[in-house]
């Protein structure tokens, strides 16, 4: 692939990095990344991937932009309130970088459509807002042997990890075997979230995606990164592969993608 003159300028700060170079930039331009959730996490992830020249970015989200999103969902704006998030996002990303093809998918991710939606992509990014979706994303990514870059945020804290359960690395079920029952752990907007936290965690996810595509550095595999904005601390914990994992362990009991993504916002019990 030969770069156009404008591309050499646009990506010059990448190309001069020995670890990226022209070859790496070509990899980015020919890669395909699917972002689940076009909200708080999906915004910084997709924007940095677009700026980096990731050639194809799929966005999955069924919601429309609400004014209450704008405190942290920086891909959207006052002008796009009321329109589908995936279209608002596509507009932003394509304006940032015309090299990027955005595929807006205004659907709820379900056990039925996950395998089809994921199949054309190299890397999957989870920035969803509920546990049901997180297990579906994990299982589909596992069956299709795709790297999953997972991020989540709540109040002032965030978590990031890279999951490749089809290797000797763990999957999401190794980390959290079961979803909490509704109400026990807050899982959404009612709990509140510091807006900038979405940027911190989403940007870390984007870094892992870019590293995966380029094949450089060490990924957060088998590790959970915790960020606490209040104490401004980052910590890494070890996440082993669970030999009893029902998905990626030696004796799996989960053999297809199932489960519901219906259950969404739950108010914390206490």
């Amino acid at each position: 692939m030969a770069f156009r003159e404008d591309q050499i300028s646009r990506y010059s700060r990448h190309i001069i990095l020995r670890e990226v170079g022209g070859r790496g930039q070509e990899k980015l331009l020919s890669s395909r990344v699917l972002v689940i959730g076009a909200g708080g996490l999906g915004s910084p992830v997709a924007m940095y991937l677009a700026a980096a020249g990731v050639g194809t970015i799929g966005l999955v989200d069924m919601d429309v932009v609400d004014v209450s999103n704008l405190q942290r969902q920086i891909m959207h704006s006052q002008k796009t309130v009321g329109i589908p998030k995936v279209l608002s996002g596509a507009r932003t990303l394509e304006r940032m970088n015309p090299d990027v093809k955005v595929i807006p998918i205004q659907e709820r991710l379900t056990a039925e459509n996950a395998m089809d939606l994921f199949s054309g992509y190299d890397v999957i990014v989870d920035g969803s807002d509920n546990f049901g979706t997180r297990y579906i994303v994990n299982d589909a990514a596992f069956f299709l042997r795709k790297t999953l870059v997972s991020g989540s945020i709540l109040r002032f804290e965030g978590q990031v990890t890279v999951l490749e359960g089809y290797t000797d690395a763990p999957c999401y079920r190794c980390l959290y075997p079961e979803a909490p029952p509704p109400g026990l752990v807050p899982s959404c907007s009612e709990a509140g979230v510091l807006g900038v936290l979405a940027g911190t965690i989403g940007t870390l996810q984007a870094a892992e995606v870019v590293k995966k595509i380029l094949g450089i550095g060490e990924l957060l595999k088998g590790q959970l990164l915790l960020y606490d904005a209040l104490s401004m601390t980052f910590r890494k914990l070890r996440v082993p592969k669970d030999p009893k994992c029902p998905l990626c362990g030696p004796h799996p009991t989960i053999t297809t993608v199932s489960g519901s993504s219906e259950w969404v916002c739950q108010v914390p019990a206490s």
Partner: protein
Amino acid sequence: MAVVVRIPTPLRKLTGNQNEVREEGGTIREVLKNLESHYPGIGERLADESGELRRFINIYVNEEDIRFRDGLDTKIQPGDEVSIIPAIAGGAK
């Protein structure tokens, strides 16, 4: 012997907003018992009726998940740090 226990944001209402507390105990089980006696209600958030740790909450001693050590009977050494890490799912909404 007291160890530092890090409390995640969803449970800080129960610890008077403290992000870490000090508890006595030679094993995680003892630490959790003392935690419950000082902060009533926190125990049922961490363990079910049969006393088993809930499966969406991980407890770490330093960087290691106790599920891959001796579970609630995992021993604690002076200076160890205990962290309670719940699954969180926020991101899009």
